[in-house]
């Protein structure tokens, strides 16, 4: 099967979208952007491939005996089981890496004890891993670093105490290892992991009236479909680090414009609030960018600003929007300058304003700034699409809707649940077009 892949190497997250020759999205992948963009793009791409395999499994399992009503549940189990396999694989890598760090003066005389402590820690991490991927399990993050890190630190404290070792020693081993593990390209053996995952799921669900042999065959058929990487296009701030030639690279402004067009063909104005910049983009009926404006010189009011505010308030980034939604009255925050906003925030807190109302004011300040950038790019024309990670923030969306209504009246506002993938979708579409246009040119020449 011919595949077209778009990779958006953003400052915070790296996203990938995989589409087929009919421009149907088969899979999406996301990872946190690390210092090593190369690895981030490979991980995101692999995640998109995993998602694609799930799509193909869904197609393959349609109509399988015993799954008529339970297909979604079964696929959910399969994916969780696969994630567990993946997690265990990386955990093994982390353990092996940790063991290589037990050298030098700090460990003199306690090498054996530290080694034994590591075995104890990783045994427990492996034992508790299935619970992390059980149905309904809540995780703060889906990234290995976050999940493994939190648990390691927790278990290490206990193990250190029991073994009479300094906790810092075990911490040090982990700190030195996690970066290596994170920056190592993931193992490419997806099929093996899927098969192992499937065996586990089938064993756990035997006797449900399912034809295990048939299901296994259908999944294996889905896994056997060759995914031919026909053309890859990269975008985002890390795009220059991709080992691609120039024709494989597009600016994220064009990718967000085209991606938004693919999601909503009637879009004429696009707002993208990314980690580093905010863009107001005007596109024509074919998704071609007609004009754009970006924030200048500082990232005031960008996604990073929210990250900063979250840090200031000692909260998770994803908790900001929901908390702001609880606001009952508006507090005016004038500044989108990150540092000034921090000052205003402290000032308001000191004056006794509640956090919900202050956060609502901060969200409004960001959107006010975005409105200025949009107006500089030519204003809002029906339909209007909001893309980027901040589009998932309901408080930002609420303020945006209010301000768009006040300034431009009734225009359709599109926000896709997969808005974070808009840039990668645009890139994948460019990849598809590159091949299509090439074929068209060859056709003309012939």
């Amino acid at each position, binding site marked *: 099967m011919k595949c077209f892949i778009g990779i958006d190497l953003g400052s915070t997250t790296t996203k990938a979208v995989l589409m087929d020759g009919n421009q149907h999205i088969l899979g999406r992948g996301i990872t946190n952007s690390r210092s090593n963009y190369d690895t981030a793009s490979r991980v995101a791409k692999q995640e998109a491939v995993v998602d694609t395999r799930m799509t193909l499994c869904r197609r393959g399992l349609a109509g399988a005996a015993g799954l008529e009503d339970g297909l979604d549940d079964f696929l959910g189990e399969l994916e969780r089981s696969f994630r567990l396999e993946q997690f265990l694989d990386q955990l093994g890598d982390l353990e092996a890496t940790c063991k290589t760090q037990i050298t030098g003066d700090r460990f003199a005389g306690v090498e054996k004890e530290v080694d034994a402590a590591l075995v104890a820690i990783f045994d427990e991490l492996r034992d508790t891993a299935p619970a992390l991927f059980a149905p309904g399990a809540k995780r703060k993050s889906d990234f290995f670093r976050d999940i493994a890190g939190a648990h390691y630190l927790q278990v290490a404290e206990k193990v250190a105490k029991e073994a009479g070792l300094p906790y810092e020693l075990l911490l040090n081993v982990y700190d030195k290892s996690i970066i290596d593990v994170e920056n190592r390209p993931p193992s490419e053996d997806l099929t093996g992991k899927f098969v192992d995952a499937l065996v586990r799921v089938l064993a756990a669900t035997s006797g449900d009236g399912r034809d295990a042999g048939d299901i296994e065959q259908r999944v294996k058929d889905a896994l056997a479909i060759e995914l031919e990487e026909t053309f890859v296009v990269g975008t985002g701030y890390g795009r220059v680090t991709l080992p691609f030639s120039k024709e494989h690279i597009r*600016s994220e*402004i064009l990718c967000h414009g085209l991606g938004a067009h693919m999601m909503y063909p009637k879009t004429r104005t696009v707002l993208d609030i990314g980690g580093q*910049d905010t863009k107001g983009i005007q596109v024509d009926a074919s998704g071609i960018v007609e*004009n754009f*404006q970006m924030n200048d*010189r500082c990232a005031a009011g960008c996604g990073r600003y929210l990250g900063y505010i979250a840090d200031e308030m000692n909260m998770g980034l994803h908790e900001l929007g929901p908390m702001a939604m609880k606001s009952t009255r508006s507090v005016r925050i004038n500044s989108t300058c990150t540092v000034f906003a921090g000052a205003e925030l402290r000032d308001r807190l000191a004056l006794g304003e509640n956090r919900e109302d202050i956060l609502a004011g901060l969200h409004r300040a960001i959107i006010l700034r975005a409105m200025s950038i949009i107006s*500089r790019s030519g204003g809002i024309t029906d339909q209007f699409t909001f893309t980027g990670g901040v589009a998932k923030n309901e408080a930002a969306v609420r303020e945006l809707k209010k301000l768009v209504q006040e300034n431009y009246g009734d225009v359709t506002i599109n926000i896709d649940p997969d808005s974070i993938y808009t840039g990668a979708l645009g890139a994948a579409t460019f990849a598809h077009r590159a091949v299509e246009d090439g074929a068209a040119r060859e056709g003309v020449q012939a």
Partner: protein
Amino acid sequence: MSTKPQAAQTEVAKDDSMLKQKTMMAGHYERLTSAKETGAKTCSTFVPGNLNELIMCFDLLNNLPEVNAIQAGLRKKSGLYVMESEKLGHSEDVCTYVKSDIGMMAKGNLAPNGKALPDPDVLMLSYTGCFTFMKWFELLREQYKCPTIMLHTPYEGDGKITANMRDYMVKQLKEEVIPTLEEVSGVKFDIDRLREYLKKSALAEDDLVHVLQSAKNKPSPIDAYFGGIYYIGPIFGAFRGTDDAIDYYRTLREEVDARVAAGAGPVTPDGDMGPEKYRLIVEGPPNYTSFRDFWKMFYDEGAVVVASSYTKVGGVYDLGFRHDPDNPLESLADYCLGVYTNRNLPQRVEMLADYVEEYEADGLLINSIKSCNSFSAGQLLIMREVERRTGKPAAFIETDLVDPRYFSPANVKNRLESYFQMVDQKRASATASGVAA
């Protein structure tokens, strides 16, 4: 104005004109910095609407603080000067030409040759398109306590020079400017000497226009923005009216003609530019502290600037203006009134839209300058209007003149690449609809 970027990493053969300009500029700075020993007197003035021919009539040397700031920018010294100025109390938002100049004075006022520039004997402001310039000269007057001539140039608000405006300026020249210059220099004004200089100016101006308009060729043999900044150096600065300028522009013209004949593109700091992929019109001054990196972002992509408004701040010769020896004072008045920055927005829009058409450009790019309200005001409006009239895409980037803190390479490159790709898309869709039709 010698605006040579840092020495090229790879040695590129220098054209005769480049070597000549280098010698001319070195000589000029040598004359200025040895003024004390030679007894020469100096006049500080500005580039837009400067009266070099008149200054020469009084044996005064022309010193241009703006050019000194540009030189400091290119030589990576302006950042220090700007901060020195801020220490002295000038706000972050003030024109960085001013701050670089003020900071440079505080640090010994060294010319590019490493010697101190002399205190001016007279300050002459002949241009008021930018009110900051008036404040700048008030600061210099405070510093040097020397006579200051403020030649008021009416803004071309209605888009034309009226007889009244011209008479008003000639009156000032006769009653204020010339008598003060006579007094400062001790030299009697001789109008025939002025006529002689103006005649020479016009000759050099003819060749400059020929060079600038050579960009109508495909490929363009010159870059009319980055390269153009070299070309306008002598004529916008201290050489208009001299034999040196005539020689320089004649040599340059011959070189450019040879490039056209050979079908060659522009010369860049890295040698000849590759194939011409994009033809752009640029509005606004460049960034000087990252001049070479900025230019590289263009030529690496095969983008050549075929016309720019910045190369008209010291005179719009390509629209027909020439210094006229038969009407010397009127001609000086028309010159001051007509420079690009003294023109109103409709005139600027018309000029840029015409350039897009005449030079068969792919579109307009605006470089908006953070610390220059005068140049930047109305630029978004200009952009929209030029887009509307030409149907060609436009884009907006933001940098600063000589403050290195306001040049964000990642941001600028991102916008430029997006713009070039936008041009590609536009072309592809135009071709597609052409095929469909």
